[in-house]
């Protein structure tokens, strides 16, 4: 059988970061092909190359044996490649029929759009999909599942030969997933090549015939699903050497500092209960979208909660009150430092001292001196590299920005430090420093709660690992129990059979 679409040795870098390095695999008509890998393995970059959004730095795409140069999304569309993104990309103000037909509306007299034909085309597609969405209604207000169905109708309307689905099921319920799969199967059986990206192995085994595994931007393997096992796939996804990056000191845990009970915020997470003791580092692991960040934001009081209690040193925190959480000694280092952690236009010293501007001020005035002293102390402790303390934070490298965020919160003398993806997007050396720092803070008696998608980091740093899946706490593993396999199995919902 000849391949319909061949991905041949493609590479793509963003700045100094190589997102995809020399990846090759083939897609066949009438076959669903799974693309799996950990977060950050480069799957989405592959999707964007197929969609014509990114151009490969190196390597080629071939359709039917001829090289395919995609200079934009329009080219990909013209070549018959339809991409369904995790976040549907519809025009909320336009009708569903128009969303489906955009750019290819049926034309009538004088090249005007034939609305009746456009609507009946959409209606026919929905009949084929077995759903009843009113083609005349605006896309605004459609549920995620319905939006995805509209996206699929779009793919059907162009008779797409290659359909790429980037985690289409992440936001869907069981019934909706079933409906989506029924459609996907019929597309596949009509001869289209499907590229299906998912973290859920039960979905992959239910739909796909072939699987390609990626790790750290590189191609690991491509096999027929029949020739491999879930165990094997998981091992290949995570299989890497644990580097000696994690200088975790052994600390005897003290009294309970943070106590979370029955924390619920529908529909994001339900009934989350755990404790963190002084001197302990607890990791909150799980796949992206499993609700980890939302849990910590709710604990800190940035996000609301529907039920449950949060106690710090026996004191109950009110919901939606970050100020009180800060006063109780909780510090949150957020995931997205650009948006949530730093004011890019302000100087380093201002950023470091921002949460304490009140305690540093004298007679209500902030004096430059006290700010500078405090900022200097913490940036030095964190070995931050910068020109002058008065430089804008935006001018620093990612790793150093992260240190400034850490300095900002550490300077408040927290009893509970919550860090969300503390080392995302920073280089190895800085990573080690951040880890060393977290470890020494724990040794000083701080209770550390760490959200991380990087398994080696989770395993290397954590005294205990809590694993979340689809909004629920599904496993609690001690340091000895936690292995790459056991965490990954819990996160993906597979029984550990290793």
């Amino acid at each position: 059988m000849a391949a319909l679409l061949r991905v041949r040795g493609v590479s793509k870098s963003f700045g100094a970061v190589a997102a995809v390095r020399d990846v090759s695999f083939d897609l066949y008509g009438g076959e669903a092909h799974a693309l799996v890998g950990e977060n950050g393995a480069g799957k989405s970059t592959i999707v964007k190359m197929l969609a014509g959004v990114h151009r490969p730095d190196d390597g080629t795409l071939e359709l039917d044996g001829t090289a395919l140069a995609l200079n934009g999304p329009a080219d990909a569309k013209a070549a018959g490649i339809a991409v369904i993104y995790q976040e549907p990309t519809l025009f909320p103000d336009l009708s569903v029929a128009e969303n489906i037909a955009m750019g290819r509306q049926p034309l009538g007299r004088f090249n005007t759009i034939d609305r009746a034909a456009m609507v009946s085309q959409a209606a026919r597609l929905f009949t084929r999909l077995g759903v009843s969405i009113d083609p005349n209604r605006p896309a605004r207000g459609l549920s995620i599942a319905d939006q995805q169905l509209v996206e699929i109708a779009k793919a059907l309307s162009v008779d797409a030969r290659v359909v790429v689905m980037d985690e289409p099921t992440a936001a869907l319920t069981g019934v909706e997933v079933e409906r989506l799969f029924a459609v996907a199967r019929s597309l596949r059986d009509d001869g289209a090549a499907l590229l299906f990206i998912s973290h859920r192995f039960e979905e992959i085994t239910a739909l796909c015939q072939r699987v390609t595994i990626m790790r750290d931007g590189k191609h690991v393997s491509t096999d027929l699903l029949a020739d491999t096992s879930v165990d094997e796939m998981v091992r290949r996804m995570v299989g890497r050497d644990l580097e000696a990056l994690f200088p975790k000191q052994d600390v005897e845990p003290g009294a309970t500092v943070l106590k979370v009970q029955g924390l619920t915020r529908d529909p994001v997470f339900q009934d989350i209960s755990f404790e963190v003791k002084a001197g302990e580092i607890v990791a909150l692991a799980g796949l992206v979208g499993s609700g980890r960040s939302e849990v910590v934001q709710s604990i800190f009081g940035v996000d609301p909660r529907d039920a449950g209690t949060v106690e710090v040193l026996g004191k109950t925190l009110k919901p939606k009150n970050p100020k009180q959480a800060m006063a109780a000694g909780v510090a949150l280092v957020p995931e997205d430092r650009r948006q949530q952690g730093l004011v890019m236009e302000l100087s380093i010293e201002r950023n470091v001292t921002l949460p304490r501007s009140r305690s540093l001020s004298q007679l209500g005035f902030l004096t430059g001196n006290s700010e500078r002293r405090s900022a200097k102390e913490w940036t030095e402790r964190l070995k931050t590299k910068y020109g002058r303390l008065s430089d804008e934070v935006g001018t620093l490298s990612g790793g150093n920005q992260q240190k400034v965020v850490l300095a900002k919160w550490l300077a408040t003398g927290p009893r509970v430090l919550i860090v969300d993806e503390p080392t995302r997007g920073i280089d190895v050396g800085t990573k080690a420093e951040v880890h060393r720092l977290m470890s020494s803070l724990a040794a000083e008696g701080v209770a550390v709660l760490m959200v991380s998608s990087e398994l080696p980091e989770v395993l290397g740093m954590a005294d205990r690992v809590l694993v979340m899946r689809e909004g629920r706490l599904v496993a609690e593993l001690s340091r000895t129990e936690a292995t790459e396999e056991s965490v990954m199995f819990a996160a993906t919902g597979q029984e550990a059979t290793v």
Partner: protein
Amino acid sequence: MTAVQLTAARRNSLSVVLRARELGIVIALGLLVVVTAISNPRFLSGQSVRDILLNTAILAVLAVGQAVVVITRNIDLSVGSVLGLSAFTVGTLLQNNPGLPVVLALLVGAAVGGVCGVLNGVLVRYGKVPALVVTLGTLYVVRGVTYFWAGGSQINADELPPGFLSFGNASLLGVPVLVLIAALALVVTAIVLRNYRVGRELYAMGSSPQAAQLAGIPVGRRTVGAFLVSGALAGVAGVLFAARFGTIDAAAGTGLELNVVAAVVVGGVAVFGGSGSVWGAALGALLLTTIGSALAVLEINQFWQQAIVGGLILLAIGADRLVAVRVAAGLKKRGSHVG
């Protein structure tokens, strides 16, 4: 009821809500005219109506162009200055070439405005600067160029060819030609926006810029195109201005951009792009102009006009929010059903 009937019924109620915006303006306009006419019947005299329509014509041409830009989630603040430059250019040209046909004058005006529009579009798209900032800049630049060129000089009616001035007052079948030109611009733009792919792509861009990019819409070209239309129409409006008033100096059209934006907003074009129509924008222009005339007839201090226009803008935005919330709530309930 069967599912099909149900869907149809819902669709009707929905389109009624959506139409309510333009209907609201028509009702407001009707009330205003009736109340004013009762208090002073002269308000409905031929000359009075004619004046209102003539004044509306220029504002409406600008509002149609502005609506095209606003639909793409941009704004063009330079239209008042572009009108001034176009008026002065065409005035000077006619001073020196009295034999110039009116059609050619209109084309020159459109070309001058078009060049300004392309400049705006290119700066917005390729300079990646928000339209608000770019067109605020070109507002001053274009005005500055006009002042530099004109100095303190002024073109008076007696320096313009009589043929051109009569074009400003001429009527065809009782309708002023300027109004016909505005109506032509309105109808053509409305048809393109509603019935052609290009038009729908402008709505798509305003509705979701990211999705437009992913859908393969040539966003850059369309953005420049939208500004080109707005600029060219502002240029045409400049020629109409010259023909109507006959007196042109470097300050012609100063501050007009705010009236234009007000007309567009009152007319129900969403400032966040993606929805609204040029019909609404033109109706907005008519309403604002009529308010101005009505206040004069009712002998209410003209200073109130600005307060009323401001109140109308807030009312329009408030109504939009209300409709949006209602519609959104209604739409949420109308999920799909597995058939």
